[in-house]
């Protein structure tokens, strides 16, 4: 596990060299590789959330339609929730090996589970009167879904997307288990490189910043998509 590369034959870097928490020169020197890991992190997060929502939306629609489906869907999602990420990646690993696919599938499962709950809550929150009125005005089921349900439920959907995105950003780091953890590679890489603090802190701060930026971006998208909500304030 520890493959420490000491500077000299007898001197360990941890003993001799200073090991600052913050080191701008580290970031400058390793800019390209940091950006590479950041890119992987973003690709994994976006991919997982997109796949998760594409599966979660039809599931939520089905679960709203029949109560018999809603129970099992929610129970299963609770169980998947509870499985720790380390175990999840280890379960998927024999099928997909040491590839980014392993991480992507695991993350997509987790975001799917978060999104199904929020989508279902959002859809159930659409007032029956409104749907009734729309149907009375001659809306077909597809138009009813797209123009009434989706818009009424949008704030809940977006809240779900924000939670799913932020927690997926944090969770991607566990992908180091199969060598595709995005910025998590920096965290564990720094740990294995003789506890190199600058690298660890860069990875950790990068994750937090990425999560915050993603959250702010999604909040902006929500504002753009719900022009009617702005009037009320």
């Amino acid at each position, binding site marked *: *596990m*520890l493959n420490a590369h000491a500077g000299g034959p007898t001197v360990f870097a941890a003993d001799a060299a200073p090991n600052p928490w913050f080191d701008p020169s580290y970031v400058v020197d390793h800019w390209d590789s940091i950006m590479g890991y950041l890119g992987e992190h973003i690709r994994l997060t976006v991919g997982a959330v997109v796949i998760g929502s594409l599966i979660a939306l039809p599931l939520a629609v089905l*679960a709203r339609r029949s*109560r018999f489906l*809603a*129970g099992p869907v*929610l129970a299963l999602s609770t*169980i*998947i*929730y*509870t*499985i*720790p*990420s*380390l*175990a*999840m990646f*280890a*379960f998927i*690993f*024999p099928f997909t090996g040491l590839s980014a696919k392993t991480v992507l599938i695991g993350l997509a499962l*987790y975001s799917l*589970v*978060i999104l199904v*709950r*929020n989508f*279902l*809550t959002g859809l*159930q929150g659409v007032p029956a009167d409104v749907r009734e009125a729309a149907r009375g005005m001659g809306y077909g089921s597809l138009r009813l879904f797209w123009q009434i349900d989706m818009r009424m439920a949008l704030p809940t959907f977006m809240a*779900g997307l924000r*939670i799913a995105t*932020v*927690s997926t*950003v*944090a*969770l*991607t*780091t*566990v992908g*180091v*288990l*199969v060598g595709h953890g995005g910025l*998590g590679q920096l*965290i*564990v890489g*720094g*740990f294995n490189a003789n*506890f190199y*603090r600058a690298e*660890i*802190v860069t*990875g*950790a701060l990068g*994750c*937090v910043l990425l*999560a*915050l930026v993603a*959250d702010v971006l999604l909040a902006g998208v929500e504002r753009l998509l719900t022009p009617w909500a702005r009037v009320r304030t």
Partner: protein
Amino acid sequence: MSGFEQALLYLNDPYNWTRPNGILELLRQHLAISTVAVLAAVVVAVPVGIALGSSGRGRGAVVVLSNVSRAVPTLALLTLFAVSPIGFGARATTIALAVFAIPPILTNTYVGFRGVDADVREAAKAMGMSRRQVIARVEFPLALPLVMTGVRTAAVQVVATASLAALVAGGGLGRIVALGFGQQDYGQIIAGAILIAALALLTEAALVVVSWALTPGPKRLPFLSTPRRADAGAPEPTAAAVPL
């Protein structure tokens, strides 16, 4: 899938359980670290949650804390504590996990105490109860289900994330998985994953039963009761609803 067969073989070998650094010893480490971390978090978070919740102050701070804690990767915190002067080992792991267990307990305690009906509080005061009595005898029992929800989510989260400590040279059941990856031993990887997942699910189930037993008032069996339709799919109001 041969990996799963090998995993069963691994789990069936008594020596893998009883040897030094075997499953039993790692399980003991895992549970010891988790228990201490959760208890420490309870000791810190519940009083603060009670103080903030029953006075109604600090709402913004609680919301910010629960949101920010979602953005910080557990792995990062575990690693940062391990390379800090605390040094890596059980102590750093315990502290990192305790820090992570605080937000769900704090938020749920806060929400629980905030949710106590103002009329009930008023009535208790009118009956001559002191502020302390109102908190201990009226608000606390009413808030207990939510407080226990917080403790349960925190405990499951801690048990789950304790396995990540193995990625940065910590102990616990995660070591079996990490070791399996190091040795390219599929059976061991799967076996470790099964143990970790089972432990997390058992913790969840055990704490559901405990909080059911502690909750005052008319009881419904925890696994049989169907949630009311209104809150069937409601996401929990806290940082709790996050995979680990």
